[in-house]
């Protein structure tokens, strides 16, 4: 409520208030990065193993950088929502994201999205996922061949929380003459529960199945990674069975493309250190059963680009218009 004949005193007061407000809004300069708290967008819902891992990494990172790192859960679409949000953030080093690499390299080739693989700078990885084709311990088949035999007679229902593995299953269906029905699932534990309850025949798991191997509730049929799984060394990898693909995947830490070089270097160095810290490694390896693979920015960028290329090649010949 400024009176009509506004004296300069009021003007000065208003100016001072505006300046004060302005001072409360921190400005970011590249040389003084990090000058304010960072945001870590996590592509998983709160409470899961991946979210926990992310929070530990955030904690370590904040100790490294001396600034708090706030975790924000942006779940949905297996990481798509997080990646979309990340792609629209400012590349100033204050927003990073954590998700499975499939959200960055595979999903853009499978479904129309608002970002591309090249819209991000890839910084490092935290642990390698253990992708497996799994079945219930009570299923009438226990090995790959038995599953194929069963499938030829009865068809198979395949549960997966993401459409990313449709390609290899379609290929299997074609080659082996099996009818496979794709059943969408709400998450890793939903898959496990459906298998144990006998509602679906086989499914894809990124590693949550490992806790159920010991007492035989779940059986691994094959590894969907490029090599065999650490917890199931006796089970063949998908490539050994004659299929030209592997779904080796990692939890990737990325930032929107266009990071200034100095910030990128310092950020990735700090992230690598955080990912390699004992607490994070312990959670990943011992409690979740994920090998704690931590890559350099160049390594992970090459990996993502190679994988994206593979998905694009797969999608191209039989691209079905939606």
């Amino acid at each position, binding site marked *: 409520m400024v009176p009509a004949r506004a004296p300069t005193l009021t003007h000065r007061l208003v100016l001072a208030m505006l300046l004060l407000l302005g001072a*409360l*809004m921190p400005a970011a300069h590249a040389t003084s990065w990090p000058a304010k708290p960072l945001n870590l967008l996590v592509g998983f819902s709160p409470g899961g193993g991946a979210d926990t891992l992310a929070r530990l990494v955030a904690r370590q990172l904040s100790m490294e950088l001396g600034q708090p790192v*706030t975790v924000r859960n942006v779940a949905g679409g297996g990481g798509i929502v997080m990646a979309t949000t990340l792609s629209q953030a400012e590349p100033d080093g204050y927003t990073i994201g954590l998700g499975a690499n499939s959200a960055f390299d595979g999903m853009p080739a499978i479904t129309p999205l608002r970002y591309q693989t090249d819209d991000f700078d890839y910084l490092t990885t935290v642990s390698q996922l253990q992708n497996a084709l799994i079945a219930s311990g009570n299923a009438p088949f226990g090995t790959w061949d038995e599953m194929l035999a069963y499938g030829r007679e009865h068809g198979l229902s395949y549960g997966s929380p993401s*459409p990313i593995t*449709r390609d290899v299953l379609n290929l299997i269906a074609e080659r082996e003459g099996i009818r496979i*029905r794709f059943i969408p699932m709400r998450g890793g534990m939903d898959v496990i529960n459906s298998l144990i309850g006998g509602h679906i025949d086989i499914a894809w798991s990124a590693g949550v199945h490992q806790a159920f191997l010991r007492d035989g509730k779940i059986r691994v049929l094959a590894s969907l990674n490029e090599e065999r799984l650490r917890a199931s060394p006796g089970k063949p990898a998908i490539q050994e069975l004659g299929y030209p693909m592997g779904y080796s995947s990692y939890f990737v830490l990325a930032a929107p493309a266009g990071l200034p070089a100095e910030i990128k270097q310092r950020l990735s160095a700090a992230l690598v250190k955080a990912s390699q810290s004992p607490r994070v490694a312990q959670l990943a390896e011992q409690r979740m059963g994920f090998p704690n693979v931590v890559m350099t920015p160049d390594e992970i960028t090459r990996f993502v680009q190679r994988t994206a290329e593979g998905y694009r090649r797969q999608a191209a010949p039989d691209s079905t218009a*939606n």
Partner: protein
Amino acid sequence: MSERTLDLWAGLLIVLAGLIGLLYLIPNYIGNGFGFGLSPRFFPYACVGTITALGALLCINRLCSRVDARRIDFSRRHLGRLLLLTGLMAGSLALIQWLGYLAGAALLVATFMLAMGERRPSRILPTATLWPLALWLLFKFALGAPLD
């Protein structure tokens, strides 16, 4: 206004919105599925279809019934106040968006107090400054979930 009149208008609006949904929103903003089972459009169509059909039923029902069941206390004045409150909230959110939490929050509390009839600055000023400040401090320091 009588409930019957309001229902009639509501029904018409619902049918209109439903048709927009069916003919424009769903085909353009929901993709097709992979071809198996129920497509992603199925349930949205079912919901909007139900809403539209029931809305039409509501209109017809209210047109046919002559009995004015109840009166609802809703006049132009009430609509005006609703718009006022909505506008105040929008303005405060805009302030939060562009100037930060404290500014917008203070505006929100102060203007709502004025709108509810409180006129004494001795009540408005402390509440509008202390409450937002308390929340801001709580979330920033005690809870580690900073507001901006």
